[in-house]
């Protein structure tokens, strides 16, 4: 009986805590979306009236749109590159024993541990010494570095969980190594690749710290643009831009969910 009461109290508390967490996670996004629909010209909640004028303003704003384009281009190309580089590294780590393999893995994962500010500062100095400062290439390389650990970790796990007897079975069925890779290994790694890709994309797309160190006038990313914008202005255009970003992200997740199922990803 005593246990019953304790159980019930704990269960109720659990529901409460969960509800709080979900609300705290979702509420900021909801507030931004609602605030973006204001008629007034300052960011406030609840909004004054209803209009979509800030969306037309956002789409008409060259700084925001070019920043959105820069961010998207950067995140997409860097994701493609980091997936190939990171998967190759993961293959080496998961499948081969070589001298310094654990050191290699630690280096690949180190951007997770080193504070991004430190990394940004270091890269800034390094790139200017190399003559690449304030260039798109420098920004690109910086993003690759912070995306890499997510890809390596996800792909190493995916490879270690892959049953290698499947590859042997394919070989036994007369498939040469490249065919085994294309028909067996790669298809079975698709969920891991998508997970790694989502992590990498989000890491690049949302990064402020590193981008603000490495961005120049021509290569301002969207988060940096938003960040600098709100420093001197507080109009609802940022809310509208943020809502666009939320919508795009939601669509991407939805498409992946339809294609492979999100439960398989994480």
């Amino acid at each position, binding site marked *: 009986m005593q246990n019953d009461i304790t159980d019930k109290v704990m269960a109720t508390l659990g529901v409460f805590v969960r509800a709080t967490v979900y609300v705290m996670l979702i509420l900021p996004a909801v507030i931004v979306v609602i605030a973006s629909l204001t008629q007034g010209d300052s960011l406030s909640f609840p909004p004054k009236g209803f209009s979509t004028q800030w969306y037309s303003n956002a789409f008409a704003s060259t700084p925001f749109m070019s920043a959105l384009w820069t961010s998207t281009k950067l995140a997409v190309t860097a994701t493609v590159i980091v997936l190939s580089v990171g998967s190759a590294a993961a293959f080496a780590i998961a499948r081969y024993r070589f001298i310094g393999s654990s050191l290699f893995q630690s280096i690949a994962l180190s951007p997770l541990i080193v504070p991004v500010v430190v990394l940004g500062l270091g890269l800034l100095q390094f790139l200017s010494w190399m003559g690449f400062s304030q260039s798109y290439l420098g920004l690109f390389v910086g993003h690759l570095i912070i995306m890499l650990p997510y890809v390596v970790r996800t792909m190493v796990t995916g490879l270690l969980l892959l049953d290698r*007897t*499947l590859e042997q079975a394919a070989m*036994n*069925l007369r498939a040469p190594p490249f*065919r085994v890779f294309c028909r*067996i290994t790669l298809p079975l790694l698709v969920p891991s690749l998508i997970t790694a890709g989502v992590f990498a994309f989000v890491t690049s797309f949302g990064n402020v710290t590193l981008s603000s160190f490495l961005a120049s006038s021509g290569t301002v990313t969207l988060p940096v643009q938003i960040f600098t914008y709100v420093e001197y202005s507080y109009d609802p255009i940022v809310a509208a831009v943020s809502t666009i970003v939320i919508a795009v992200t939601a669509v991407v997740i939805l498409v992946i969910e339809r294609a492979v199922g999100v439960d398989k990803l994480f």
Partner: protein
Amino acid sequence: MDKNTAVLTLKNLNKTYDNTTAVDSVSLDVVKGELLCLLGPSGCGKTTTLRMVAGFVKPTSGSVLIQGSDVTNQAPYRRDTGMVFQSYALFPHMTVAQNIAFGLQNIGFAAKAQTERVHEMLQLVELEHLSKRFPAELSGGQQQRVALARALAMNPAVLLLDEPFSNLDAQLRVRLREDLRALLKRIRITTLFVTHDQEEALMFADRVVVMRSGRVEQVGSPAEIYETPATRFVAEFIGWCSLFEGVVDGQGVFTTGKSIRLPLDHKPGPATVIVRPEYVKPAEALGSGPVFEARVTSNTYYGALCRLRLDVSGQEVLMEAHYPYGHGPSIGDRIEIRIDPKGARRLPAH
């Protein structure tokens, strides 16, 4: 054995890892249509041997010949072997039909021929109705049959089975074993299979190779292995038996120091004799043979029969007997037993 008919030949096969020897000078011939079993406890090198035939493990020395040609240095995907893995290793992202067709595509079957062959194989293992299912949607027994169909579709020179029944429950195992044996015999495929289960080896194989610590202990038909084991290890690993150490005298009588006396028509000298438990019976159940007084030290009930451990003046004797319901002896009881001298086998001296 006629060398020309050997489909698979192992010559002096060795495999050493660092300082441990996994397989030690194994030589074998498997003839066309034969079911040969590698039997032994885990770590005896049987699986390593199988994997060397498939090409997944490279021998340290020695050679593997398939249909007369040396494949020792050939990659796995160039060898004419079909393997059924212990875990079946079905491709989870392909349907049953796609799993079977995979190998056919690799050896250049045209689309139409593929479909026909897949259908033929599914008929053979009686799974036509499941061709569009994914492996995860099949039972263990069905998965095993798909794995078999996938290997057989390639019409390999040698079929390799790695503990094919170990993932199935006991009842299913017995039935599938009989079915599979009948099927393999019908299509006359040369098969090398690995197991640690002696019952499986005896009922399934035409010839059994007993392995221990990487070496071949004995090769023979199931009956030879069971009835006339070559070594003490084989005697003890295959089934149950009593072991007597003693001497054969000039009159053809075998005696141990502990009052076992059995007529044994062998040349005089020290001898190790084994007696299978079915040759030991309660005195009243066997017409002739020497009678011994025994004390029951354990009695395990197996349904159709009981397995008893008996103490005959300090010598352990094992007996299998049927007792009418409620009449089995209890621990500590004194009973009279007879040992059928026909069941006494002298182990070859080493």
